[in-house]
């Protein structure tokens, strides 16, 4: 259902000179933050065009706000569609969250109440978005630090049901599974088991920070051992899904991230051998 792209990196400004200057062995594809390139011109668009000439590109958004009860932002969707038409990304994704209400955009990924009402609402909006973009999208499980008292569904079941009813995909952020399960006392294996295998089209890996009793999804550390183990579990369950490492703060030299991507490749290969062995 989704392209098996191999292993990619999130494209970040600090690495533009390196990525555009020479080949990037060890990197199969790049993921870009959609909103950073929804601009008229200049260096960001030039870099994106140059990268796209050499690599598959995946577009990952942060502002769709699929869970809000505000109307969908038609201007935003139009700009996203235009960027898709130009770049022809292999995958387009955003988050199962909301980030705006009453016209106020908060630039964060806030949790959706896991209620039947919210489920039907999100499903309807995903269908509208997919119609507008003319393609299937993937929704990512966000890191959550709070869960509404209202709601009988758990997060994984909610996400799985959205994917089934709306016929969309799932971007499985393995670090977010680890963070959310720690923060709420959920079972990580049960979380993975609740997701339909055929719907998982991409995987994210990242690092996090510790803040008292909670883990915070900061994307400022290498992937930790617990998340590597969970990634192996995910590959055993979902197969050779396209995998990307995200780093948004304390960004290391490019070659250091490529080396970490090599760790992901080796972990996935070992997990696939176990799966088929």
């Amino acid at each position: 259902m989704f392209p098996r792209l191999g292993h990619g990196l999130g494209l970040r400004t600090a690495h533009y000179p390196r990525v555009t200057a020479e080949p990037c062995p060890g990197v199969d594809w790049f993921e870009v933050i959609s909103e950073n390139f929804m601009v008229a011109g200049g260096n960001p668009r030039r870099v994106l065009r140059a990268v796209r000439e050499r690599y598959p590109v995946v577009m990952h958004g942060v502002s769709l706000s699929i869970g809000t009860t505000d109307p969908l932002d038609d201007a935003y969707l139009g700009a996203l569609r235009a960027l898709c038409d130009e770049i022809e990304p292999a995958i387009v994704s955003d988050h199962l969250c909301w980030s705006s209400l009453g016209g106020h955009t908060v630039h964060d990924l806030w949790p959706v109440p896991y209620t039947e009402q919210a489920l039907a609402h999100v499903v309807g909006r995903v269908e509208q978005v997919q119609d507008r973009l003319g393609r299937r999208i993937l929704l990512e499980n966000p890191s959550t630090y709070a869960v509404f008292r209202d709601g009988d569904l758990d997060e994984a079941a909610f996400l799985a049901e959205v994917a089934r009813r709306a016929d969309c995909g799932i971007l499985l952020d393995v670090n977010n599974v680890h963070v959310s399960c720690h923060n709420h006392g959920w079972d990580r294996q049960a979380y993975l088991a609740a997701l339909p295998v055929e719907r998982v089209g991409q995987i994210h890996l990242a690092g996090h920070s510790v803040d008292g009793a909670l883990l915070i999804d900061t994307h400022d550390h290498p992937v930790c051992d617990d998340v590597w183990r969970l990634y192996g579990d995910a590959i055993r369950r979902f197969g050779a899904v396209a995998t990307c490492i995200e780093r948004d703060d304390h960004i290391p030299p490019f070659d250091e991230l490529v080396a970490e991507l090599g760790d992901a490749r080796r972990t996935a290969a070992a997990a696939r051998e176990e799966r088929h062995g």
Partner: protein
Amino acid sequence: MADLTALLALFHDLATGRAPTSAARDLLRDDGVDPAVRAGVYAHAYVVRIRDAIAAEYPKVAAALGDATFTRMVRGYLDAFPTRRPSLRDAGEFLHRYLADGGWSDGPAWLADLAALERARTDAFDGPDADALTRADLAELPPTAFPQLRLRLVPTATLLALTHNADDAWAALEAEAPPPPAREVTRTVAVWRRDLVVIHRTLADDEAAALRAVVAGAPLGDAFEVLAGADDPAARAVELVTTWLDGALIAA
């Protein structure tokens, strides 16, 4: 949809600091951690993420105020101008207006103009691409055509009117030197992008007047009437056009 909207509104007020975090106990699950602590994670992230984004787009304003004052200023700004655009890079789009309207008074008088200058530079950074007119292009025209010639600035170009010496402050902060005391001035700064490099330049009064006329659509002959008082108006006109062409300020 009323129930869902009401739930989201309660969370929104918690996470933006409009409701006390103690209200979280009625809205969020405990699961071993106080709901107020959980809501606090979102409330903290809301301000920090936007503050950091605004600091990235307004590095000179941030440097001039220092971390603590800048953070307090951003909190006031967010109350006055809640963000409404999907790109985080636009979070500070009204900062210069907030400062100019007196929303924040704990800073130098050039702060609002400095914010406007930094915003103009950000807009130029990823504004529309365009080819610039060259000397060779103009050389193809007969001299008699020049008075009727109408030029257009490249689409990233902006003429910014300053009321205080924010251009001097920008230069000092760029050099990591102490910024100058504020003083009232009447200046025009042109901001634009040449290939991938954002440029700004403070204009002489006659150049500013001529460029404003060009932007308004006047033919060069009319635009250069402001040069009538110069020692050699024709030479000054040639000097200005040459400067604009060499600076890639005029669109092809």
